[in-house]
């Protein structure tokens, strides 16, 4: 395929093409050749996937099995904590996923698994979810359910034929030839799909509004400005399955009769941009994008517009400004983008995850989709599970899964025997959820009731070592830096809140500060112009709600219970434990520790900069943090 001249396909040709590719896909998988599939998302590459790949090639050629072995690449499998990950399919053996495959392990896999047919048990990982496309391994008890990530870790994202072989562009074909715009909207309505960017607005309504506006030109926008620090669901989806986004946007174009789409993506995601460009080129060559799509009279094309590092541009009116090459300042709504969007024309803006769900809804039907999830929220949600968690990575679960299942069953709990403190969802716009609520089934409504939000999918686990005041300050520092400055509740309110937090962390807080923060936060929520300002006090308000004690400890007792806030802690030598080995004195960067050999040491509190080096190096646990 890659070497052949590509030509535009009509509907029947696409069907024939798919049949052919399905056969090839399975032939390659099952006809005597061994397949090694390496995850090469950003995390994988960062962890050394390229070196691993080279080691495979080297060992394969040393063992002289190049003729019977295929090495290929795929997107993120979701096991970020154990990258590089590799799937090995040897004929006659069950397929095996390996984690932590460095060059040495790669060579061992070739020798032991492929040559001697013996699995390296210490590196084996369980498959995260069943495959909704091939529908194999049904009924097995998987915690995860992959709709958005259905192709990630399975197909090579740079090969359109692999996407097509897995029902790719089938939804587009069905939409264009068998459905009217209203049929599509109805299918979305039945599905219950709501926007995955955070706000959870029903997708069908957005499309329907845009469709009903009488205007010659309309636009489709994919919001890939994933700015929540600690979230990378969209990046992984774009890197692992770029065609799913193109297909969905094209379906939307057909639905509302738009001719052009924009993908607004962070410039910080070079690999995702590269793969989108490759995918767009391939789709144009096959007539799946451009004029007369699949031989019909429908024309649609997509252009990439780069973001430039402004969190506020995730807000849709700011995003529109940025697409138009302007400073990304939000505008009051109404008018909403569905009426007045890019260049003043009606525009559908959806987030990456929302787009990625749409081809599946068209293929399997809205009813199938709505059978997954809860009464309030249908379908699945991808979370980037990070922070103090053993198995950090991407997880996709049905709505209604509990936080406990995500954090303990999938995430493996908190490392180093530390205790769970809270989980932060929704990033800088969200809040914390505590131990008492771990059994809450997740959906838009339940999280909101707990004072947090679903958000775009960042899920940060905090342990007893993390200070909530410090975390609140981290998020607020982010939002004041990202505030565009247009409206004063956000610009001024955020700064004042930040100053109060700094004061508290320095041990200069007063009891009235807590109510002061609540009042300012409340005003910001009500009076800010856009979502950024309206939600930026949330991390404070929610930590105040659940951890008021901890704030009070900072304010009244001048103590940081998590021992994180440096101005409120002291390092002391425990005389009974100190052996006088002098290690801490030698390591102290400011020479604040004195004491003779074999004598109890002493820390000069006036000189100590609280770097914690003495605590880290002491072999006798003789340093106490108070």
């Amino acid at each position, binding site marked *: 395929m890659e070497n052949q001249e590509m030509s535009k396909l009509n509907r029947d040709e696409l069907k024939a093409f798919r049949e052919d590719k399905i056969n090839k896909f399975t032939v390659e998988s099952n006809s005597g050749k061994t397949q090694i599939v390496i995850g090469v998302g950003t995390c994988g590459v960062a962890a050394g996937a390229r070196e691993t790949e080279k080691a495979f090639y080297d060992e394969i050629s040393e063992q002289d099995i190049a003729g019977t072995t295929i090495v290929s690449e795929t997107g993120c499998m979701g096991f*970020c904590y154990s990258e590089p990950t590799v799937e090995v399919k040897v004929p006659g053996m069950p397929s095996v996923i390996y984690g932590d495959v460095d060059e040495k392990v790669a060579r061992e896999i070739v020798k032991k698994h492929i040559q001697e047919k013996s699995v390296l048990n210490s590196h084996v990982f369980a498959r995260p979810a069943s495959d909704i496309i091939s529908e194999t391994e049904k009924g097995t008890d998987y915690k995860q359910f992959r709709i958005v990530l259905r192709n990630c870790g399975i197909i090579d994202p740079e090969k359109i034929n692999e996407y097509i072989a897995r029902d790719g562009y089938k939804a587009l074909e069905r939409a264009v030839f068998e459905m009217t715009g209203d049929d599509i909207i109805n299918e979305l309505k039945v599905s219950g799909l709501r926007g995955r960017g955070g706000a959870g607005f029903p997708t069908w309504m957005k499309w329907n509004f845009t469709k009903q506006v009488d205007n010659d030109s309309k636009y489709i926008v994919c919001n890939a400005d994933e700015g929540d620090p600690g979230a990378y669901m969209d990046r992984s989806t774009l890197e692992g399955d770029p065609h799913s986004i193109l297909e969905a946007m094209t379906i939307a174009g057909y639905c509302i009769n738009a001719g052009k789409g924009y993908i607004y993506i962070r410039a910080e995601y070079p690999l995702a941009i590269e793969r989108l460009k490759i995918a767009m080129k391939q789709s144009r060559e096959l007539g799946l994008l451009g004029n007369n799509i699949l031989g019909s009279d429908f024309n649609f094309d997509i252009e990439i517009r780069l973001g430039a590092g402004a969190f506020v541009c995730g807000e849709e009116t700011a995003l529109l400004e940025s697409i138009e090459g302007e400073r990304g300042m939000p505008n009051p709504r109404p008018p909403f983008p569905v009426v007045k969007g890019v260049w003043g024309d009606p525009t559908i803006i959806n987030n990456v995850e929302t787009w990625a769900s749409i081809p599946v809804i068209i293929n399997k039907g809205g009813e199938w989709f709505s059978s997954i999830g809860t009464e309030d929220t249908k379908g699945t949600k991808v979370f980037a599970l990070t922070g103090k968690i053993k198995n950090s990575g991407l997880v996709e679960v049905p709505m209604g899964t509990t936080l406990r299942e995500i954090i303990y069953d999938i995430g493996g709990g908190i490392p180093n025997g530390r205790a769970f403190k809270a989980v932060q969802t929704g990033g800088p716009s969200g809040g914390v959820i505590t131990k008492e609520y771990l059994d809450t089934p997740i959906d838009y409504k339940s999280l909101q009731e707990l004072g947090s939000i679903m958000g775009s999918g960042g899920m940060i686990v905090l342990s007893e070592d993390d200070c909530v005041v410090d975390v609140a300050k981290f998020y607020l520092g*982010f939002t004041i830096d990202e505030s565009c400055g247009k409206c004063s509740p956000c610009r001024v309110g955020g700064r004042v809140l930040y100053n109060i937090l700094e004061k508290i962390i320095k041990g200069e807080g007063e009891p009235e500060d807590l109510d002061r923060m609540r009042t300012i936060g409340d005003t910001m929520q009500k009076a800010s112009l856009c979502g950024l300002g309206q939600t930026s006090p949330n991390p404070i308000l929610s930590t105040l709600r659940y951890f008021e004690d901890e704030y009070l400890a900072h304010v009244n007792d001048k103590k940081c219970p998590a021992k994180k806030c440096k101005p409120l802690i002291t390092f002391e030598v425990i005389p009974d434990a100190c052996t006088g080995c002098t290690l801490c004195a030698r390591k102290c960067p400011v020479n604040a520790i004195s004491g003779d050999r074999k004598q109890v040491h002493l820390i000069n509190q006036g000189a100590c900069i609280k770097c914690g080096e003495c605590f880290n190096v002491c072999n006798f646990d003789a340093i106490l943090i108070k």
Partner: protein
Amino acid sequence: MSVTSIEEIKFSNELISFINEWKNQPGNLIMVLHRVQEEFSYIPGTAAKKVSEMLGVSLSKIYGVITFYHYFKLEKPGKHNIQVCMGTACYLKGGEDLVDELENVLGIGVNQVTDDGKFSIEAVRCVGCCGLAPVVVIGGKVFGKLTKKKLPEVLANFED
């Protein structure tokens, strides 16, 4: 951004044809600025002036856009720009300690360049490698699960 300089800045042919290609497309400014920064590693004042002439956009508007977005730089970064991730996961796992240590080792602050022009430090938002936190990115290569101790070893890769 100095705009008084009369020296002419040279754009490569690829850059010129990129700008010409985008010239008549609406909303081209950010895309053009990205391409300029790709060429110079920052946006020199003279380059902004030239872009202003080529696109027929006022320099003040260009300055406004450059300063609004974190990604665009007005100062030339070091040959090896060290980007320390300050996303949530990296922050919780000690990203700040890495910044402190880099400042110590290199003797410069964030957004500053060493005297020999070799290194600069930048604190960046999430690079999306939270599973490897804390991370730094140098020249597009990600170094994960870093500690203060490992930093000199990482910097040694860029001693040229």
